[in-house]
């Protein structure tokens, strides 16, 4: 933790970056995002097991960007987000610097190449809890799964916290905001909620970095992240590609192989 504070302080003092995005103390034991612009405030930065939110979400925000070059405290999924954002031309190398926290060590990763190397050594990120939940759901019958999701999704109030917390949901106009035609009903009801969450998972398939931030952001506790993680896993299983592996475009869903294998098309 001290190493991080020192590093952030140095970078800010030297003017290498103008803002360090990290975690600070929140209510109780919770952590909240902290934007440090003055070297002397670097001491407020915290790193511990409670720091799980993917801070890459802020890298595409106009208000943050105008401050100048950004250093971001990066858990493994954040690194993948940076690469995916780079591949999608949403961020340039000179705009960002990652302070990667890997196994308790802080490493400064100033280039996409360095981030790619670090990401390559990180195993696929699905947490054990998520894996167990997906296995449990997969073992259910189709009607059971439908019942499970019906019960969950009916509670969705369409606050879009999942979308707001997601680093890859940076679109200025989401499909949900389109009203000609109105793909996703404005009102919150089980059918429309299902359409919304399936849509979001499809849009994240091949781009999701499996941080689970969307699930944690949900105020009513719907495990929406399971949908995006499942879609990402589906891409990985079938096409051997994953989101956020490279700063060069490698999006499984806008490419193909002539010998992609399926067994359901007659």
């Amino acid at each position, binding site marked *: 933790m001290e190493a991080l504070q020192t590093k952030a302080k140095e970078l800010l003092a030297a003017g290498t970056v103008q803002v360090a995005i990290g975690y600070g103390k929140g209510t109780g034991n919770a952590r909240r995002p902290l934007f440090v612009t003055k070297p002397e405030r670097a001491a407020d930065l915290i790193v511990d097991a409670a720091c799980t939110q993917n801070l890459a979400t802020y890298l595409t925000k106009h208000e943050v960007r105008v401050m100048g070059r950004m250093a971001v405290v990066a858990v493994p999924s954040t690194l993948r987000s940076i690469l995916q954002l780079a591949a999608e031309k949403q961020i340039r190398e000179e705009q960002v610097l990652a302070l990667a926290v890997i196994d308790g060590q802080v490493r400064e990763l100033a280039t996409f190449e360095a981030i790619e190397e670090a990401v390559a050594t990180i195993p696929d990120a699905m947490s054990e809890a998520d894996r167990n939940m997906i296995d449990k*759901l997969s073992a259910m019958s189709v009607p059971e799964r*439908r*019942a499970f999701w019906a019960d969950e999704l009916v509670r969705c109030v369409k606050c879009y916290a999942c979308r707001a917390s997601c680093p890859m949901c940076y679109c200025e106009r989401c*499909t949900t905001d389109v009203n000609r035609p109105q793909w996703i009903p404005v009102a919150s009801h089980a059918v429309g909620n299902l359409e919304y969450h*399936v849509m979001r998972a499809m849009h994240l398939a091949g781009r999701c970095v499996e941080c689970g931030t969307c699930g944690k952001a949900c105020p009513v506790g719907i495990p929406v992240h399971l949908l995006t993680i499942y879609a990402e896993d*589906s891409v990985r299983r079938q096409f051997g590609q994953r989101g956020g592996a490279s700063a060069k475009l490698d999006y499984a869903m806008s490419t193909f192989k002539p010998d992609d294998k399926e067994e*359901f098309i*007659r």
Partner: protein
Amino acid sequence: MAEPFEPKITAFVCNWCTYAGADLTGTSRIKYQPNVRVIRLPCTGRIDFMMVLKAFTRGSDGVIISGCHPNDCHYTSGNYHARRRWMVFRDLLEFVGIDLERIIFSWVSAAEGAKWADLVNEVTSKVRALGPYRELRQLAAVGID
């Protein structure tokens, strides 16, 4: 006695292979069941998964998605892109509990008029046996007391 259930089948087809194939079914006067409504699109690559969801939520009991065989796409590779999309979409639909028996994918070329008739007949009969797709429509009432 109640009227026997007649399923609503929505078909998303590409203009160059399956639509032309279905035209050939007509030219060859091969009969099939009248339950299908065809939405003509230029290419399977144009078939947004949102359209498929909408078809179900708007009351389709079954959906057919069909286009050119691999390698035969009029636009070179639209069908390959579509195939990838379907591979993930289908997986995800199953994960959220949508009955995959009701969504049928097929390659029907412009020369396969008979295959189109067989496909429609088979899907119509199958969906008729499965009964109306109430599950999604019932969802609309979930949580409303």
